[in-house]
């Protein structure tokens, strides 16, 4: 299986996104912004279609348009303080509206379907280079801003008092989310991408550890989910995105059941 170059490409990108998605996802989940991840992953479809329309890299198109939408969400937060849920509806309307208009115009020379469900076959060499750059820059930025991001998620007021430029870091974080989404869409597809961001973190949270162990376990679960999804989808000849989402739900369920059984066993022993 790994003798095929398309499978090597897919494996390489899968390893990168198994690291990147939970590193971004942990901050989205803990800030209760999981729906922002979902909205932005849908928004990326507009960037993909615009990229395809102008014969440019759809991954780059997704990154740029999703960054723009992430920035727009931050900007609108100031205007819709009391109706924050409206912000996601506005961004979703803008982006999905753009995507549907471009697709239905009949001007696309390529098929955007593979981006909806994910595909093992479509990762090109230029995608790999772009995804590697996005992942490396994102992980480096996350390392540099780690403590600021932890505090903005945990206690934003305390972060402000300590001198953290919360608004600027929120904008930077929007770009990081866009980066994770752009890196992932080839394999996972737009529709289930948010599960890659949220579910490994949800699974790690079941272990009730500190922040750093939770982050490490999120990456481990993400690695298991994505690689299992990739290999099994190859043998079943199904889209990797959907199957990876199913694996991540199954792993979450297994950990929850295991935790319940373990605590029951411990209670019985006492």
């Amino acid at each position, binding site marked *: 299986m790994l003798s095929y170059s398309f499978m090597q490409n897919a494996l390489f990108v899968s390893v990168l996104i198994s690291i990147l998605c939970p590193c971004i996802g942990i901050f989205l989940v803990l800030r209760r912004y999981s729906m922002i991840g979902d909205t932005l992953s849908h928004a990326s479809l507009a960037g993909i279609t615009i990229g395809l329309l102008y014969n440019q890299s759809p991954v780059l198109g997704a990154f740029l348009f999703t960054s723009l939408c992430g920035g727009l969400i931050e900007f609108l937060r100031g205007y819709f303080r009391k109706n924050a849920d409206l912000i996601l509806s506005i961004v979703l309307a803008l982006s999905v509206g753009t995507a549907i208009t471009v697709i239905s115009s009949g001007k696309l020379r390529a098929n955007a379907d593979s981006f909806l469900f994910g595909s093992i076959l479509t990762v090109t060499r230029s995608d790999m280079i772009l995804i590697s750059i996005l992942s490396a820059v994102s992980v480096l930025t996350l390392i540099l801003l780690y403590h600021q991001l932890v505090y903005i998620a945990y*206690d934003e007021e305390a972060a402000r008092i300590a001198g953290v430029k919360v608004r600027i870091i929120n904008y930077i974080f929007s770009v990081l989310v866009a980066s994770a989404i752009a890196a992932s869409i080839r394999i996972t597809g737009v529709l289930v991408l948010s599960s890659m961001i949220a579910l490994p973190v949800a699974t790690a949270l079941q272990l009730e550890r500190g922040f750093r162990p*939770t982050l490490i376990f999120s990456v481990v679960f993400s690695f298991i989910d994505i690689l299992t999804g990739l290999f099994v989808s190859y043998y079943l000849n199904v889209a990797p995105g959907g199957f990876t989402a199913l694996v991540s739900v199954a792993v979450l369920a297994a950990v929850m059941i295991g935790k319940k059984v373990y605590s029951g066993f411990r209670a019985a022993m006492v």
Partner: protein
Amino acid sequence: MIQAENLAFSYTGSPPFVLDGIRFAVEDGDYVSILGDNGCGKSTLVKLILRFLRPTRGSIEVKTKRIGYVPQRSDAAASGFPITVHEMLDSYRRLLKLRDKSVIEESLNRVGLSGCSGALMGTLSGGQSQKALIARALMGDPELLILDEPSAGVDQDSQREIYGLIKALNAVRGITVVSVEHNLEAAVANSTLIYHLSGGSGHMCTPRQYVSEYLKPKGDEDHA
């Protein structure tokens, strides 16, 4: 240390004002409790002092290098945010750019939580959680400590410990304290001054004056 002049604030930028005509001064070494009914603007006043909000009119000046802030027991702690006491303090130390890691242990020792460093914040009792937040606020040796209802959700024994600690920080270490209070007994017993907020405006008085002016006429002298 804090000087408010004709301060007014409205969340919409126009009347009605949550606070209006606020004028007070907090000197170095004071322990001021802010009292008032629910919704009278106590937390808004604290947010103005912390510069989270900007005055609609007038001014508020805070002359200090470092402020320690103890919020009401944070929602994040209660929601099971996966962070240990040590991680919470260590990240904060890095935000304050304090190189010496020993400040974490020192802060925990000061509040009597040295054995809880590895515990998750969400698993601490109300009193322990509040002490951990005080330990965080003490990092970097602040000159001003601002607390928002420090005894909320805390049992009686822990309340005594927490107020003893705050009072010692004020009396022994000379840290200026501003505390939003719903606990009248603690405010009267510990503060050097009380700022009473009512109807959007306020009045600074001593605890003794507060008891005679605001509590006795209402028949609430039992609290004091």
